[in-house]
């Protein structure tokens, strides 16, 4: 099991390498401004996730219009596994909630 913040950060990195500010922007864009952690909490989590091998510093420079001076983070294989495991666990929980009529089914489901 991983913490919700770890999960959120891993999701933000799932489709590309980002620096700290980029992670914040991605979270804000997907989940709203309230979901973004404070800068302190973000870097605390990133350092921990790096130590646990969930993310790594991105070796190559990102695209031409990106800021080369910044440190970029990349999700590792282990990170992807963790997201998959956690997503499956959450999906199971959500499915249970649906069956118990705590969550309406989506219209297209």
């Amino acid at each position, binding site marked *: 099991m991983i913490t919700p913040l770890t999960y959120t950060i891993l999701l933000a990195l799932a489709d590309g390498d980002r*620096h*700290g*500010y980029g992670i*914040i922007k991605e979270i804000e864009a997907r989940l709203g401004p309230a979901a973004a*952690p*404070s*800068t*302190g*909490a*973000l*870097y*605390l989590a*990133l*350092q*921990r996730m790096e*130590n*646990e091998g969930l993310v790594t510093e991105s070796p190559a420079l990102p695209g031409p219009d990106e800021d080369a001076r*910044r*440190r970029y983070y990349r999700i590792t294989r282990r990170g992807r596994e963790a997201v998959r495991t956690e997503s499956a666990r959450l999906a199971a929980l959500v499915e249970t909630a649906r069956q118990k009529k705590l969550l309406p089914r989506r219209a297209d489901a």
Partner: protein
Amino acid sequence: MSANERLFRLLLRLVPESFRERHGEEMLETHRLRLRDVGDRTMSRLAFLVRESWGVLWLAVRLRTGGGRAARSARPASVQRMGMLDGMVQDVRFGARTLRRSPGYALLAVIVLALGIGASTAIFSAANAFFFRPLPFADADRLVMLYETNPEYGWTDQTAAPANFLDWREQVSAFDDVAAYSSFIDDASYVLDGEPVLLAASAVTGNFFDVLGVRAAHGRGFRWDETWAPGAGVVVLSHRVWMTHFGGDPGVVGRMYEIGGRPTQVVGVMPDGFSFPSSETELWLPWGWTPANRDEVWFRRAHFVRPIARLASEATPARAAAELDVVVERLQRAYPETNSVMGAGMMPLRDFLIRDVRRPLLILFGAVVLLLLLACANVANLTLVRGAERGREIALRHALGAGRLRVARQLLIENLLLALAGGALGIALGWAGVRALAALTQLGIDGATTIALDGRVILFTLAATLASGILFGLAPVMRATTGRIHGTIIEGGTGASAGRSGLRTVRALVTVEVTLALLLTMAAGLVMRSFLLMRSVDPGFRTEGVLAVQITAPSARYPGRDEVLAFQDRLAAALEARPDIERAGFVARLPLDGPSWSSQFQARGWPPDRIGFEILHRRADAGYFDVLEIPLVRGRMFEPRDRGDAPLVVLINETFAREHFPGEDPIGQRIAFDRAADERSTWYEIIGIVADQHQLSPGVPARAEVFEHRYQDWWRGAWVVMRTRAEPMSVLPTVRAALREIDPLVPIAEAQPLRDVWRASMAREEFILVLLGAFGVVALLLATVGVYAVTAQAARRRTREIGIRMALGARSADVITLMLRHSLVMVGAGLAAGLALSLVANRALGSVLYGIAPNDPVTTVIVVLVLSAVAAVASYVPARTATSVDPVRSLKQE
């Protein structure tokens, strides 16, 4: 770097170095970008900053304790060094849980702290604006204000005569350059699309912007030679006027407009936020002197410019002052008629700008520190009273092996949590307070800086928060570390047995609270009484039902004396013809709005060494005295026959007659406004004496004043005063209509009921009163809470004893007396200490009080009575409750 970034960087210091080395710059950059995204709304910025600061603090705590176990592996040694902080997180969590369990206590404590911290934040942000915030000029610490001094006239920081200013500028080498601006704002009438508009103009020398080191945002500032060209017609616009009247169009530079009846070219627009010398300044015009002026006597006699100098890079202020003295002495010898005793001085620009607000701000700051102390004492008290109830828990923790320090830390952390919550709420209150301060008066160094929450204010609040957390936490912590373990557990019972030593501390704290409350309510009471006294002073004229409207006859269409007088006469007639206007008159400057100008004088037949100094001048007509109901004491009023071609006449006020013609009859005397009057002087005959009017404020006695007649000393920019039959401001449309009939191109510069002028003259006193009054009320409330809490606790502790007494037949009155005796002792001690301290502290108020001494006995008696009464009620209520308990029940309770 902005203040916000500085704060963030400062907080980052708390984070272990290894982590900071790796992530510090990245974090700062991320923070900066996010702050930019948040936008300019103060509230959302504030919320963001609080959240970010908390985030970094949390990060530091986690890294330095076991919390961020994986994250700290960047450098494990640092954690071992910080081993003392192990378990801090648990303490924080535990503290938060404990506080959640007693929300009433937590809420009360937070509110009390927020009041103290909020009030000090608001006052500090005002003080910050005046004392610390950088002035918006390049190298502002090299700028000095120059002024004239004159012992004969009692001048200490007078505006300078332009001729003297020019000599200083040319002869003092320690000044890089000296500029001069007008100390009054003039209204410049300007025509845009055929519509007349009035703008507030500041007259300046051509080097004004260069001396301040401010560059135009568009176009250019003035050049020195433009000071001298009356025909040149150039103007620099403020950013505000450029936006409101010219649509922010940069193409306006170079265009011609009619300003003050003259074609004038816009040469520049100043940057946003620059509005020196006054926040009202909308445009800058050159003085427009002629070189010939320099040799004319009036140019050295009339004192109306404010010189501001930039020190040369190698010059010290002392050298500049010495050089200035040399020049001043030279001028005294060269121009004995005007300069014989004229001195000069200089002071740093900031000192000059804050000279009027320094004292009130220091007083308010002192008061707010007392208030914060009172809040701390109050919360300490609450904590102790509650601590008494927690005595058993703490003793148990000791018994289970928790070290004294560990327990102390636990309590301290709880207090800090409370303080932080109080600080967060306090900053919100402070922000609201800042808004109120700004709205209450036009504070802010005029045109140079504004009151706002910036990084320094937030740091101050943080410091105040931490200090108060430690301060009010001290007493409970000390008790926890020295308490008796064994005794507390076996005492058992309700745990309400705080022990005698605990009660003693609480009582001491209440005494301190009463002392502080007395100081604050006393200050409020003194200021209130002084204000009421000032309000009851008769200003010497009617203030109700009078409308004053400023109307200037533009020189383009009314070039000379005859045209202006005809315009003013027609206007008066048109106004008086309206049914809701009873009578109209003219005056050059309203009373209580300061003097217009002053001079010395001699009467015909006086010896050369008899000179009347510093008489004030005002120009008016008979209508003015009629509208304001200023009685003629003796002699006669101005009459229509006193025209320009008739002998010149003046009226004087009673103070003039008393001071300058003691034992003589002034009426019929002939006077001239020169210190060496002779045949070439202009002589006036005194025809009457009118009653005094206050010229500055109701708190300043009327000074000797002379009135010239409008028909003889005519002027353009006039205040029309009208006695109205309806609410003054409701008559304004009528005035506009009447004016439009006469000349649709003349605008009304300003309109205000005379009542507002009267009130505005006491604005400073009102400002101090409102703030000190609010502090006084809060202090009274806090002291009440303190007295109530301690009596209630004592009552609870003695429930059983009271039960026994009652059961044995004691009357409830006896028991109440017994309980009241304790609180009266502690309140009495507080009052005595407060009275002793107030003897010293109140002296600081001396300069802002009117009509009473700092230790006014009436105020003292009233304040002591009010405080005693409030304290008596606060202790009677819980005592009464205690005796109303059924003896059987209270005994069973054990």
